[in-house]
């Protein structure tokens, strides 16, 4: 990003700061999740894969932090913020049960759908290298999903009912939390990631909106569930029942 870009971002820098903080927190949480996953894997290849993913997510977090420095802001993160903490706890319950498939569903289907969709939207409107960073990371995250889909489809082929029930059970916890995060207004107080007041009402200043990020995320989630083979009429009902 050159000096002209920096100048042009100066008025919107606080908005990008919060967007980057949410993204960085998500990436650090993903890194923690993959590290935890490596601890329940038994196959050396799976362990290596999980650790590689964890490293990749840490790299993404670092890239977001670097983008913050370029526009002159300090990018904070808070994996203990209330929503992110609940998401981590949902993942850790799968870890406690040594539920590898559950871990993949939470991280790759739910959290990555959210990441891919929202990063893609941000990538389209963010200027210069900031936009490139979001778009590039969205593409990398999408590759994760592709890899996980093939594993999960094979799992579903063994017992579709059991698999769909598991997805639904995790959906209730994880997607409800994500839906609350993505709601147009934060109705239950500060998210504990934004540096000052909630960034959502200001998103229009950078050609984004909370409604758009939510819509794109839910669309990506539905399409990912379609790829798993879960009937569309079932997933439509699931998503329709989420809080707004």
């Amino acid at each position, binding site marked *: 990003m050159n000096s002209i870009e920096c100048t042009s971002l100066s008025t919107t820098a606080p908005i990008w700061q919060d967007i980057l903080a949410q993204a960085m927190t998500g990436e650090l949480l993903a890194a923690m999740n993959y590290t935890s996953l490596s601890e329940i894997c038994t196959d050396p290849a799976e362990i290596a894969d999980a650790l590689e993913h964890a490293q990749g997510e840490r790299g993404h977090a670092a890239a977001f932090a670097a983008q913050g420095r370029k526009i002159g802001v300090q990018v904070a993160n808070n994996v203990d913020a209330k929503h992110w903490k609940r998401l981590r706890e949902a993942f850790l319950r799968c870890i406690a049960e040594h539920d590898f498939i559950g871990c993949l569903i939470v991280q790759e289907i739910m959290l990555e759908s959210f990441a891919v969709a929202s990063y893609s939207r941000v990538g389209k409107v963010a200027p210069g290298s900031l936009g490139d960073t979001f778009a590039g990371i969205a593409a990398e995250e999408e590759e994760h999903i592709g890899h996980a889909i093939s594993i999960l489809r094979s799992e579903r082929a063994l017992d*579709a*009912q059991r698999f*769909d029930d598991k997805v*639904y059970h995790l959906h*209730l916890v994880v997607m409800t939390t994500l839906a609350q995060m993505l709601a*147009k207004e934060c109705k239950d107080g500060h998210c504990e990631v934004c540096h000052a007041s909630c960034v959502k009402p200001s998103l229009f200043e950078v050609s984004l909106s909370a*409604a758009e990020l*939510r*819509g*794109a995320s*839910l*669309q990506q989630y*539905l*399409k990912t569930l*379609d790829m798993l083979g879960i*009937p*569309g*009429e*079932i*997933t*439509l*009902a*699931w*998503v*329709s*029942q989420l809080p*707004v």
Partner: protein
Amino acid sequence: MGQSVASVAGRERTIDVDFALIGHQESWRAAADVLAVLRGPERTPLPDDEIKDILPWIPPRAVCHVEVGSITGAKARGFYIDSFIPPDRLQAAYVHENIARVRGAAACAIQAGAKIASLGGFSSILIEGNFDQLPERHDTVFTTGNSLTVGFIVQGIERMCALERRNIRRSTLLIVGATGDVGSGCARCLAPIVRRVLLNARNGERLRRLATELQADGVQVEIATDLQQLSAEADIVICAASLACPSLLLRRVAPAAIVCDAGYPKNLSPTVQMPGVKVFFGGLGQITGGMRFAPDFRGILNRHPFPDVVHGCLLEGMALALERRFEPFSQGRGAITKARVEQMEAIAARHGIYLAPLYNADGPLEHAVPCQTQWSSAAVHRPRPDRIAESVF
């Protein structure tokens, strides 16, 4: 959870899927009602602004299972697939986006293994002349359903003339949207039995071609791309296209004319826009063998004042499925002939699918013929009068 949905759907689509019905919601209110059913009675309905924010992002997908019965005892099973075209994006500006949505819905039908898919409402209008825009079809055939729509429009005109004691042979017929698939089909069926035909459409060249075709059979035809240029008043009107400005029509219709609103969405109101004119909603049929939705979208997807009433375009797919005749019966634009319409009507009638009792936005225009359906009760099928013009089915 959406237990009601999950329980009826089963986890794998191991059942034969005979048909898929592809459509979309005509109004935000209709969309809100669909989402309210999906949310379940225990959750508060979504606020209107949230619905408008969320619906455009929903990818095309099945909404419910549909089972229909024939008077022969046969049954056919299928899905209703919504393309989730936002109700305020039906204009030309969104045509590419909407075609993509219809393609997505068609892909759902193919993936579900539907043997035949009917394209309802705008879905067929968008792809009428461009079936190659649909995904590669595998074992699924597609029909616009327009042959049966034309059949029910023509039957409706005949019934309305009988109710109003009009002699159709002395009538001047005006068709608005005459060069479309439905409009031209109606022209071919009715031109030989009326005194004079007035044709209106936006495309002058297509109008001239249709007029030449009808004149070759000795029909007296006048054409105009502007309604106001027509020299005569019509006493029977078929609006095969939704009118942007219904009041324009008033200047070209005779007092107490019969007007068939066959457009989609239906937007002619007899009391407000057409005082004195006898408006009815055309192109609708009734399945006397019964129709069942799972989850129960009765009165939500089909908002008519009579039970088991469905748009002809969707009924065509169901009738062909009951007949076990999985063929692309209606395709392309301008290919509907009287013979094909009669063939389709005969297939429908074999399975107890007949012209629906006539009604308009104010309510029924005639008493319902007692409808002995297997699954439906007229008592539970009374949507509010202000909702009966908004049916996807």
